[in-house]
C-alpha cells in the first residue's frame, strides 16, 4: 500500500513537470493545426538556455524566464520559416519538417555545448518523510513552480484579450477572422507562448536530473502521449493527460518493471486513438 501511495506521489510530481510542455504542445496544435515535433529540440534548447542563465547567477524563476524567451523566439522563428509554409500542403509535411528542425536544434546545442551531461548546480538534499511516504523538498518546489506556470497560462487564456483570441481562433478560425481577430498574430503568439512553455518544461525536467542534447528527445513521447490522451488541442486535457501519463509510468514500474515504461506512452496513444480518438476531454481549447 505504502509503495502504491509513494508511486502515486512520484507520478504526480513527474506529471506536473510534464504538463507544462504538454500544454505548450497542445496549444500550438489547437491554433496551428499540426503536431509540432520540434518540441524535442526546443525543450533541449530551453533546458540549456535556463542552464546558462542559472550558471550566470539568475535564480530559478529568472532562469525559467530566459528559457521561456529563448525557446519561444527560436520556436517562433522555426514555425515562420520552416513549418508554417508547409501547413498549406497538410499537417503531415509540416509535422515531418518539425521533426527535422528538432534534429537540427538538437545538434546545434551539441555543437555549442558538446555531449557532456550538465547539471544545474543545485544542492541535493535528503528527502523528508511523513510516515513511510517520502518526498523531496526540491521536487515539491519544482512542482509548485510548474503548477504556478499552469495557473498563469489558464488565467491568460481566460481573462486576457490575446488569450481569448487564441481560443476563438482555435475554435473557429474563419469566424474569429470575421470578428477582426488577426489569425497571423494569433498564430505567432501561439508559437511563441507554446514553445516558451516547452522550453520551460525542458528546464523544469532538467532541474532535478541532468541535461544533455538528448534531453528533449527523451520526453517527446511522454509529451505527445499526454496531449493525445487529454485530447489534442485541449489545454486542460493536456494537464489531465500529463498527470495520467506520469502516474501510469510510475505505476508501470511496480506492475511490469521500469524497462517497459516507454510502452506506457505508446499504449496510451493506442487505446485513446482506437476507443476515443478525440481524447478524454475532446478538442475544446479550454
Amino acid at each position, binding site marked *: 500500500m505504502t509503495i502504491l501511495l509513494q508511486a502515486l506521489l512520484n507520478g504526480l510530481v513527474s506529471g506536473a513537470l510534464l504538463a507544462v510542455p504538454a500544454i505548450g504542445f497542445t496549444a500550438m496544435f489547437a491554433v496551428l493545426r499540426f503536431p509540432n515535433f520540434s518540441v524535442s529540440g526546443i525543450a533541449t534548447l530551453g533546458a540549456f538556455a535556463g542552464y546558462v542563465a542559472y550558471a550566470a547567477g539568475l535564480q530559478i524563476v529568472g532562469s525559467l524566464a530566459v528559457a521561456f524567451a529563448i525557446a519561444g523566439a527560436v520556436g517562433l522563428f522555426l514555425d515562420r520559416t520552416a513549418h508554417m509554409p508547409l501547413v498549406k500542403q497538410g499537417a503531415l509535411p509540416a509535422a515531418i519538417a518539425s521533426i527535422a528542425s528538432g534534429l537540427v536544434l538538437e545538434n546545434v546545442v551539441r555543437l555549442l555545448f558538446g555531449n*557532456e551531461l550538465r547539471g544545474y548546480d543545485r544542492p*541535493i*538534499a535528503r528527502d523528508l518523510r511523513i510516515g513511510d511516504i*517520502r518526498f523531496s523538498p526540491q521536487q515539491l518546489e519544482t512542482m509548485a513552480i510548474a503548477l504556478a506556470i499552469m495557473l498563469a497560462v489558464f488565467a491568460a487564456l481566460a481573462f486576457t484579450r490575446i488569450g481569448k483570441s487564441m481560443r476563438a481562433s482555435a475554435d473557429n478560425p474563419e469566424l474569429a477572422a470575421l470578428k477582426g481577430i488577426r489569425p497571423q498574430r494569433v498564430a505567432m503568439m501561439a508559437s511563441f507562448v507554446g514553445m516558451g512553455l516547452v522550453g520551460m518544461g525542458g528546464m523544469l525536467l532538467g532541474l532535478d*536530473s541532468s541535461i544533455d542534447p538528448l534531453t528533449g528527445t*527523451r520526453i517527446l513521447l511522454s509529451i505527445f502521449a499526454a496531449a493525445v490522451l487529454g485530447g489534442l488541442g485541449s489545454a486542460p486535457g493536456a494537464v489531465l493527460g500529463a498527470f495520467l501519463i506520469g502516474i501510469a509510468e510510475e505505476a508501470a514500474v511496480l506492475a511490469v*518493471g*521500469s*524497462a517497459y515504461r516507454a510502452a506506457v506512452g505508446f499504449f496510451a496513444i493506442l487505446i485513446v486513438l482506437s476507443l476515443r480518438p478525440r481524447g478524454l476531454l475532446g478538442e475544446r481549447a479550454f
Partner: protein
Amino acid sequence: MNRLAIGRRAALLSGVAAVASPSVLRAQADPIKIATLTPLTGAGGPYGPVMAKVAAAVVEEVNAAGGVLGRKVQLVSEDDQTNPDAGVRAARKLIDVDKVSAIMGTWASAVTAAVAPLCWESKTFLCTVSGADSITLLPHQGYLVRTQPNTLLQVTRAGEFLLSLGAKKTYTLVPQTPFAQRSIEILAEVSKKAGGGHGSQIYDDKKTTYRTEIDQALRFGPDAIFCAGYTPDTIVLLKDLYRAGYKGKILGQAYAVNQKLVDQIGQNEVVEGVYTFAPSVAEGSTALERVKKMSGLASPDPYTSQVYDHTNMVLLAMAVAKATTGTAIKDNIRKITQGGGKPVDNAVDGLKAITAGEKVDYAGASGPCDFDDKGDILDCKFRYEQIKAGKATLVKVA
C-alpha cells in the same frame, strides 16, 4: 569566358583520366584501409574520441616506418553515437563505401551486437571492447575478438569484491542492455552461494527520475547495490539513492562512475564511498607507457589501451598473413598474440621482426591479449577504486 570554359574542360579531362587509369596501377598506391567505430557522442562520448586518437597515432607510427607489406595504412574513423542504429549506418558506410578490412573499438554492447552480423557477413574483422556474454556467442565464424572481459568474468569478480566487503544481500539495478539479464543471474549466483540473497530490477535508462525504482530496491533491504548502468542514468540513480537516505554500499562500473559523473553531480557527499571496478590496464607495461604518450593521459582508460592493442594486432596479423583482408586477419590473429615468440608491444617492432622471419607474441597495454576460440580473452586483472572526497582512490588491483 572562353578561358574559363577551357579551364573547366581541362579539369574534367584530368578527372576522367584519373578514373580511367588502370585499376592495377592504382591498387599499388592504394592504402590499406582499417577503421575505428567508437562512440564520439552519447554515453560513451568520454572515451571514443581518445580511442580514435590513439588508433590514429599507431597508424601514423607504422606509416612513418614504411607501412605494412609496403603499403601505407589509412585509418577511417566513424562515430557510433553509442547507439545501435547509428552504429549500423556507420558500419555499412565503412564496409560498403570505404571497404575497410577491420573495424575496431565498438564500445557499447548493444552497438557491437548490431554491427557484428554486418562484419562477419562481409568478412570484415571486428575488434570490440564490449563485455556482454552474448557477443562472443554470436555465430561470428571467428571474425570477432574482444579485449574486454565478458560479463561472467566481470560480474563474478564484482560479486566477490562485494562479498569481501561483507555485503551478502545484494541488489542489481541495470538498464535494458545485452548484459542486463546475465549480470543479474551471475550476481545472484555469487551472492546466494555465499548464503546471501539477491534482488534486481531492469530499468529504462531514459527516465528523468528513479524514485519508484529505488523505493522498490530499498524494500529488499540490500547491503550493497550494484548500479550497472552508464553515466547519464547512474547520475540520476545516485542522486535519488542519496535523497532516499540509502546508507549501504554502492558498486558501479568505472566507465559509468567516472570523474565526469562526480563533477556533474557536483556534491561530494552524494558519491562519497561509492566503489567502482574495471578491467585493469597492464600497469607497468611498456605498451601502457606508449599509450600514455599517444593519448596525452596520465592514466589511460582500459578502452583506449584496448584499441591501441586492436590496431597493433590487426596490422601484425596482416603482415604475418601477407594479405590484408578480414579473412587474413581472422586466420592469423592468434599467431601473433599467443603461442610464444619474440615479445613485442607495438606494431613497428613486430613488423620488423616478422619481416626478419621471426615469430612474435604480442602483449599490449590492456593485458596479454590471448584469445580463446570464441574470441574472449583468457585472463585479466581488475582495478577496484573508491570515491573519497570527490576523487577515485585505489582500493586494489587483483
